[in-house]
Every structure is written in structure tokens, then in C-alpha cells.
């Protein structure tokens, strides 16, 4: 008689996994030096992407998610190029592209003509990203609805074990923020400064990492730029760094990525 799940450690079942083989202090050069994010799939869960912007470039995949008002509880998905009616998704895509020029960007559009079913639509996009094995997902949004604590916690765990790194902006004000508050995701808020390679780590939570997000200049639909502030612009900075790390060290689990981020943060000892 064996306890549940012990079979996973049987010879022939257990699989090898990459380790952080670093000799000496873990530096930014070790973490991502020479990487361009090539081969890394990054999903932008947001308002869409304007791929005509020169700072964004080609988008490898497009999926729009929309709540089906006629069938309560159902989310429709539509493949194919879509626009960015709000602008925010383009900004995030551009920030990621600036950090990791050769990533494969996926636009997962979750904003539509109605507010109905938003959390369900958001969850559907995250589920899609996990099922399609995206390496990184930038989520510059969250839900404050306590009814969705459980579903998003489950999704965050699934992403963790599927090696999909969820990079989540936490709310700009103190409020429930799912899945951004969960320990299994890489949570981000804005810190002072403009250096895209500068990172702060906060072990106390609920937000663990600080990145540029104050008066940052971001690409905006129509080929222009916008100076703006928000935790939602700090998250793609970290998503870009995660893409660089995974471009150099393939197959790392989210906890390993987080360890690297902590090791190269400003006050790391």
C-alpha cells in the first residue's frame, strides 16, 4: 500500500529538471546576458495589440475572448487579428518587446463591448495560455471579486506546475487583487526610476517585485507614445526580464525564475 502521489517519484516516472547551475554570485549577466528572448512565447492578456506600431512588431497569435450574453457562463473565442481599442495592450506589448526583442507575442484580448462576465473572460484567457504552453503571461489586470478567489487560485497553481510564468500587476490601491496576490505568481508594482533592468524584491508581499511604472513612456496605438503611471506598466517590464531569463535558461520552473529575479534585485545580499 502506498500513499497517494508517491508513484510520481518512481524510477522511470520521475523526470529530470533543469537546475540553476551558477558558479559564484548570480548576476544579471548570468541571468540573461546574451538573451533576446528568442523562442519564448509571451501572452499579453489585455485590450489587444496594435502590431502596426514600430515598437511592437509582429504578433505570433491572436485570440479574442468575449462573454456570451446569450448563453450565461460561456466565453466565445475568436482567432485572428484584432485591434486594440483601449491602447493598454499595445503599451504592454511594446514594453516586453523592448526588453526581449525576439519573443513571440500572443495577443489575448479580454476587453469587449460589455462589462458582463469579465472575470470569467479573464480566466478563460489564462486557461488558454496554460493549455497552449505559453512561457510567460503578462496580466496587467486582476479581479477584486472574492467569488473568483478559488478559480484563479486553481489557475495559478496549474500555471505554476505547467511552467507558465504568470506576471501580474497588483492593484494600484489596497484592494483584493486576484491572482496578483497569490504566492505562485510573480506580482509586480511600480517603483521609482526608469531603468528597465532595475528590479526591487519585497519578501513581505503581497507584491514581490518593483519595476518601472511611474511616468513611463510607452508605445501607444497609432504609432505614438504616451507618458503614464500605473502598476500595470511595471508588470510588462518584469515579463520582459522573465522572457530574457527563459530565453537563456530553458525549461525553468516559475520558482526558479523568481529566485533569479530576487538574486539580481537591487538589495539582494
Amino acid at each position: 500500500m502506498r500513499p497517494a502521489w508517491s508513484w510520481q517519484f518512481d524510477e522511470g516516472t520521475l523526470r529530470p529538471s533543469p537546475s540553476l547551475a551558477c558558479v559564484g554570485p548570480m548576476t544579471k549577466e548570468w541571468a540573461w546576458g546574451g538573451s533576446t528572448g528568442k523562442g519564448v512565447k509571451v501572452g499579453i492578456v489585455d485590450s489587444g495589440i496594435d502590431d502596426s506600431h514600430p515598437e511592437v512588431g509582429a504578433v505570433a497569435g491572436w485570440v479574442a475572448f468575449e462573454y456570451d450574453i446569450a448563453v450565461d457562463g460561456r466565453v466565445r473565442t475568436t482567432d485572428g487579428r484584432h485591434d486594440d481599442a483601449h491602447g493598454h495592450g499595445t503599451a504592454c506589448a511594446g514594453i516586453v518587446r523592448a526588453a526581449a526583442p525576439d519573443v513571440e507575442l500572443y495577443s489575448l484580448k479580454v476587453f469587449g463591448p460589455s462589462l458582463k462576465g469579465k472575470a470569467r473572460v479573464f480566466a478563460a484567457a489564462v486557461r488558454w495560455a496554460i493549455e497552449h504552453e505559453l512561457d510567460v503571461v503578462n496580466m496587467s489586470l486582476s479581479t477584486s471579486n472574492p467569488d473568483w478567489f478559488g478559480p484563479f487560485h486553481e489557475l495559478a497553481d496549474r500555471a505554476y506546475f505547467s511552467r507558465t510564468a504568470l506576471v501580474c500587476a497588483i492593484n494600484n490601491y489596497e484592494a483584493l487583487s486576484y491572482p496578483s496576490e497569490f504566492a505562485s505568481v510573480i506580482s509586480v508594482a511600480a517603483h521609482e526610476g526608469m531603468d528597465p533592468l532595475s528590479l526591487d524584491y519585497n519578501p513581505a508581499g503581497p507584491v514581490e517585485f518593483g519595476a518601472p511604472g511611474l511616468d513611463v513612456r510607452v508605445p501607444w496605438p497609432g504609432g505614438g507614445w504616451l507618458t503614464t503611471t500605473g502598476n500595470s506598466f511595471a508588470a510588462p517590464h518584469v515579463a520582459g526580464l522573465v522572457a530574457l531569463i527563459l530565453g537563456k535558461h530553458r525549461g525553468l520552473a516559475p520558482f526558479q525564475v523568481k529566485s533569479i529575479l530576487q538574486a539580481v534585485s537591487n538589495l539582494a545580499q
Partner: protein
Amino acid sequence: MGVEGAAIAGPGDPLDVDGILTAIAAAARIGFSAAACSILVASEDESALVYRASSGAGAENAVGTVLPVGRGIAGWVVSSGQPIAIADLSEDPRFDRATASAIGYVPRSMVSMPIVLDGEPVGVMHLLDPTRDDDAFEFLAALARASAGAIAAGRRADELRPQGDMATALDLLLGMDEHDRSVALELVGVLARHARGGAVGR
């Protein structure tokens, strides 16, 4: 009289949600030395945002204006539940200058805060051209919570048609724990006393 929120009257009067929201907008405008502050609330079918209250430049024209949730900055804020600040709106080629011009004021900068009720965004506060931004998000969030309380009380009042006074209606705030409810009541009470004092003007 030109006193914002003066419609917040005494016992026995029906709940004046728009009056409360106007007083909150005035508090935000004054607190941040801004040109204007508006409060938009989602329509019943959740496809649009309607200007319900406004204070400052263009206030009289703003109320009643409708924006779609499917586009623009306001639509993103209410859809994402995330606040955002923009330093120079002239850089955004898609900023709705036509609507702003029709309202009577075209802002250069903006801070937008979602109004959240029961965990779901139901509206947006727009603060235009603030000259003070210390702790902007936290203070606006407090005012947004008060706005949510007023909206919730108004919805409950519509459902129950209470005959009681404003204090009874406010006591029916939905989705708030005891601490938040006492904070919201205290804030709205302060705004009401301030408005009746006539110290707030357009």
C-alpha cells in the same frame, strides 16, 4: 446657489445619489487642486459609462454624457479594475477630444480610478489636470469606495423604496464590512455638512 451637494438634505428626503456623488467629485477636485472631477457609472446593460456627477470645468455639460466601455481610457479602467494616470493626453491620438470639447474642457492630464462594488467595477472617477498628486491613488480610492457606497445605497433604495431617512438608506450599503461602512458614512456625513455650510462652489 452654486453649492455642490446641497441637495443632500435632511431626514425624510429621498436619497439623492447624484447629489452625494457630486459632493464626492467636489471633494476630489478641491483636494487635488484639479480643474475638474467627474464620476461615471456603468449603464444597466454594462455597455456604457454615463456621467452621473461632475465638479469644476465643464460640469454642467458633462452630466448625461455617455461613453462606451469598449474603448478609450475610461473603458479600460472600468474593464480592468486598475487605476491609471496619464501625464499628457495630447500624445494620445485617440483621446476623445470631441467629447471633451463638447463638455467644455479639454484636459492635459488625467487620473482615472475605478469604482468597485462587490468586487466588480461599476464606474470610474476621472480627475482632470490635478496639480497635487501625493498619495493620489490611495485618496481617490477612498473617495471611490464612498462613491460605491452611494451607488449601492441608491440601488437598494430603488429596490426597496424605503420611507425612512437618508441614514436608513445609507445603512443598507451592500458589500461593505463594518469598518468600511463606518468610514463611508463618516465621509459622506462630513461632505454633507460641508456642502450645507456653502463653502463649496463651482
